[in-house]
C-alpha cells in the first residue's frame, strides 16, 4: 500500500457526458503542500470535492492515507475549507466550534473551541452570533472550524479569495504551523504568490487534465505567471 497522504489513481469525473476530470493521477507525501492551480472551470474544485468525500469519482480511486475519503477514519483526518464558510449564522462563534468539536468527538470540545477562537482572534466575540460578524471575522471562524480537530490533511478551495489582510495573516500562520507539524496541505488557488510561498509542489490543471505536476521551483516563486506561460494553454 502507498504511504502517501493523498493519492489519486486514474480519477475521472463526468457531469453528464462532459468529463470534468480526465485520468487524474498524483500522490502527495505527508508534510507536503500542493498548490493546485488552473483557470476557472479547470476542475480544481471538483478534484478537491472528490478528495474530501463530497463526490464520488466516475472512474478511478482517491485515497486519504490509504482509505476511501468517505471512511470515518479518513474523514476525521480531513479539514476542508470550501467556497462557503460552513458555519451557522444562527449560532454564536463558540457554539459553532463546540458543535463541530463534538461531531469530531474531540475529548475536550470546550477547550478546543476556546483555543481556536483565541488563535483566530475571535475570543472577544465568542458569544456573538455569526450573522452579526463582518466578512473577515466569518472567514477566520471558517479557518478555526476547519483546523479545530487537528486534521492531518487540509483541503482548501481558494482559501485566500476575498480574505481581508488579517484573515490572510491568520490563514498563513496556521498553514505554516500545520506544515511545520507535518500536516499535508492541498490548496486550489488563483492567488499564486501567497500559495507559492507556502507550496512545496505545484500541479497545473488544464481542462480536467494535469498539465504539470512537480516541485515548486525558485523560478515559479520569482515569476508566479511562469508556470502558466510554460505549461498553460496558449
Amino acid at each position, binding site marked *: 500500500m502507498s504511504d502517501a497522504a493523498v493519492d489519486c489513481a486514474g480519477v475521472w469525473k463526468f457531469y453528464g457526458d462532459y468529463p470534468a476530470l480526465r485520468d487524474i493521477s498524483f500522490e502527495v507525501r505527508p508534510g507536503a503542500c500542493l498548490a493546485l492551480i488552473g483557470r476557472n472551470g479547470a476542475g480544481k474544485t471538483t478534484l478537491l470535492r472528490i478528495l*474530501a*468525500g*463530497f*463526490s*464520488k469519482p466516475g472512474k478511478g480511486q482517491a485515497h486519504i492515507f490509504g482509505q476511501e475519503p*468517505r471512511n*470515518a*477514519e479518513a*474523514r*476525521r483526518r*480531513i479539514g*476542508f475549507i*470550501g*467556497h*462557503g*464558510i*460552513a*458555519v*451557522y*449564522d*444562527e*449560532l454564536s462563534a463558540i*457554539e459553532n466550534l463546540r*458543535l*463541530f468539536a*463534538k*461531531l*469530531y*468527538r474531540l475529548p475536550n470540545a470546550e477547550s478546543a473551541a476556546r483555543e481556536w477562537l483565541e488563535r483566530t482572534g475571535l475570543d472577544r466575540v465568542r458569544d456573538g*452570533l455569526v450573522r452579526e460578524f463582518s466578512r473577515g471575522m466569518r472567514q477566520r471562524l471558517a479557518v478555526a*472550524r476547519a483546523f479545530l480537530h487537528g486534521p492531518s490533511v487540509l483541503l482548501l478551495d481558494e482559501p485566500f479569495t476575498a480574505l481581508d489582510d488579517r484573515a490572510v495573516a491568520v490563514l498563513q500562520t496556521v498553514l505554516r504551523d500545520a506544515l511545520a507539524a507535518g500536516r499535508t496541505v492541498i490548496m486550489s488557488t488563483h492567488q499564486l504568490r501567497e500559495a507559492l510561498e507556502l507550496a512545496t509542489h505545484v500541479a497545473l490543471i488544464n481542462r480536467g487534465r494535469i498539465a504539470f505536476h512537480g516541485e515548486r521551483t525558485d523560478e515559479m516563486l520569482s515569476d508566479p505567471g511562469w508556470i502558466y506561460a510554460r505549461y498553460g494553454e496558449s
Partner: protein
Amino acid sequence: MRFLSQVMVITAKDLRAEMRTKEAINASFAFALVILLILSFAFDPTEETTREISGGLLWIVFTFAGTLVLNRSFARELPNDCLDALIAAPVPGAALFLGKALANFVLILAVEFVALPVFGIFYNVRWTRQFWPLMLVLVLGTWGLTSIGTIFSALTVNIRLREVMLPLLVYPVMIPMLLGAMRLSALLVAGQPVTGDDTVWFKLLFGFDIIYTALSLVLMETVLLG
C-alpha cells in the same frame, strides 16, 4: 453511546437554530391556525359532522403544517454550505438522519399540541376523552410524517423547486399512515375506544414507522452523496 451523542448534538443544533430564527415554527403555527379557522367557516361544526371529519381535518392540518417544518430541515444547511461541513464530519448518515428527524419531530409535535386545543374550541369538541390513546396516535403518525419527510427533505435539498417537490413526493408515500391516523383520530376525538378490527390501524402505524425509519437510516448516506 457515541452514535447517540452525535444524534443529540445534531438535534440540539437544529432546535437551537430554529428557536433563534423561529422561521419554520412560526410559519407552521400560523398555517395550522389559519387552516383550522377557515375550515371552521366552511363546515357547520355540528357534533355529528365534527365526528365524521375530525380525523381527516386534523391530519390535513398536521401534514400541511408539518411540511413547512420539514422543508426547512435540510434547507437550513444550505446558507454558507453548512451541509458540506456536516457531510465532511465523521458522522454516520444514520446519526444525521436521526438527529434531524428528532428535531423535526419535536417541532411538529409542538405545532400539533397548540393546534389540538384550538381545534377543540373552534369545533366545540371535547377531544380529551380518549387523551392517551389519541397522544399515541399523534406520536406514531408524527414520527411517520417526520421520518419520510426528513429523508425526502435531504433528497430534495438541492432542487430549486424543493418547496413544491417535497409535498409531491411525501404525500403519496404517506397515504397508508394517513389512513390509519385519520381513522383512529376520528374514533378517539369522538370519545370512542379503539377496539376490535380498528386495532389493526395501530399495527399499521407501528409497522409503517418501523419500515420507513429503517429504510431512512440505511439510505441517508446514499441520498446525501448520490
